[in-house]
């Protein structure tokens, strides 16, 4: 695996392989926050201390490769361009915050893109596992074993009372953030999304729109995660979210059934209009792309559109992001240039299918 591989391929493996309930659950993610000994957290560490963390982490590359059977590599964020860092953000391998500051910041990642570990983000280590579909428990098992491998070489900051110690007290304890990304177009179209989201927030879970501002979600993609990390066993947190996600999936299925049976013509019209625009348009903004792709994906999932592989939806979600577009264009693009390039890529990807 090379850096170019990581940067140029729009799909990391979690996007390619289907998982359970993948018509609604795009991905399941587990993130563990860990810090090393009494080295100050990145917000207070000296450059020397940050470097000490980097060197310690590099020592685990071999162990991770050997014990997981997947090649791991350490990527120094200071050695790649800002554009490339933002491509990593669009691929969900690092956070936007992590792309800002590059010196002594790193990414430890496996060739399959399932495991990625941010080094010196808000905490010394943020290990993330992403799997396709609804597979939170499986993701937790992978994260747990990665944590064991790392722990074999490092003294993690830990107290008997507060558990794993983290920079922000909202992560302390298990250091675990579990989340699922859900595509919920039918709940939005049938105006039920508000009811569902407010019910979720009563359960100690946080909801946000993936690409939108606040609770508005462009492309009808929502991320749901646990809020509390202290006082619960990891398994409880994971099982709770898995079961809530399962219930939302059921609600979305019911809403899709309802639309399919009662509003079939309107639904088909909406879906084919979106398909028509995406197959022919010459200028498409990022927001318009997200909206229309959501409609097309719903049509594909319901069998209204049959000639498209649902996989291209995930592929296009990444390919049409502004930084990724510039990366494949090999040049700077202004807003109009990006919108034209986006339209072209969407047309090509859809045509390749038919």
């Amino acid at each position, binding site marked *: 695996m090379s850096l170019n591989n990581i940067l140029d391929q729009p799909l990391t493996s979690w996007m390619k392989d289907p998982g359970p309930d993948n018509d609604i659950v795009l991905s399941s993610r587990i993130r563990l926050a860990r810090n090393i000994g*009494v080295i*100050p957290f990145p917000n*207070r560490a000296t450059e020397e201390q940050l470097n000490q963390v980097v060197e310690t982490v590099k020592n685990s590359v071999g162990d991770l490769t050997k014990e997981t059977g997947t090649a791991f590599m350490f990527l120094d964020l200071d050695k790649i361009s800002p554009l490339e860092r933002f491509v990593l953000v669009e691929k969900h391998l690092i956070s936007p915050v992590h792309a800002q500051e590059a010196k002594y910041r790193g990414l430890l990642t496996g060739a399959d893109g399932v495991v990625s570990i941010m080094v010196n983000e808000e905490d010394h280590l943020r290990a993330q596992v992403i799997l396709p579909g609804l597979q939170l428990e499986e993701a937790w098992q992978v994260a747990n074993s990665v944590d064991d491998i790392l722990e074999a070489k490092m003294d993690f900051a830990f107290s*008997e009372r507060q558990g794993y110690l983290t920079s922000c007290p909202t992560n302390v304890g298990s250091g675990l953030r579990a989340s699922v990304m859900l595509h919920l177009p039918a709940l939005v179209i049938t105006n039920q999304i508000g009811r569902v989201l407010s019910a979720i927030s009563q359960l100690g879970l946080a909801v946000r729109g993936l690409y939108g501002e606040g609770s508005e979600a462009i492309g009808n993609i929502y991320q749901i995660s646990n809020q509390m990390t202290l*006082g619960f066993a990891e398994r409880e947190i994971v099982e709770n979210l898995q079961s809530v996600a399962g219930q939302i999936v059921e609600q979305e299925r019911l809403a899709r059934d309802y639309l399919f049976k009662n509003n079939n013509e309107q639904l088909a019209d909406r879906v084919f209009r979106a398909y028509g625009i995406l197959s022919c348009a010459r200028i498409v903004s990022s927001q318009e792309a997200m909206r229309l792709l959501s409609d097309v994906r719903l049509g594909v999932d319901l069998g209204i559109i049959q000639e498209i592989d649902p996989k291209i939806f995930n592929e296009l979600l990444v390919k049409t992001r502004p930084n990724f577009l510039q990366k494949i264009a090999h040049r700077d693009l202004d807003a109009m240039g990006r919108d034209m390039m986006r339209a072209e890529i969407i047309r090509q990807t859809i045509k390749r299918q038919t």
Partner: protein
Amino acid sequence: MLCDDCKKRPAVVHLTKMVNNEKYEKNLCEQCAKETGEAQIAFQPKYSIHNLLAGLLNFEPGTGAALTKNQGVMPVCDNCGMSYTEFSRSGRLGCAMCYTHFSQQLEPLLRRVQGGTQHAGKVPGRTGGTLMLKNKIQQLRQDLQKYVSNEEFEKAALVRDEIKQLEKDLNEKGGE
């Protein structure tokens, strides 16, 4: 009915909360209800958790705000140099030792934003100390009770012996 938190004032606010599919009822007095801010924390759409935290910290009587007026008793972490005021401004701690230095101020905060104040999850082998052993003993005690109430006395005896052995190990480790 007395308040579940302070157990002093009468409970006037009654909250029902679902955590892990289990219903929890919480009965609080007016003061504790305000302090926990249960209602507000639940749904924060466009939120910055750090701003939210900083807000909580600044308005907390007796800690951040009050201490700022009295610089003399302001706690400072001697490992990373972070002061409690800095923490209440940024919402982030500076190092693992901050948890010890600011433990008094952190307890009420954790009670508010977290599900509890005692870690109940994974324990690292290297730095977990005797916690793994303690958890194991706790688990075995629960098993013991189950066996006794089911009148499975042979199994109960085995578990009791195992607990004894582990407690001996724990004492030896503690004495090191």
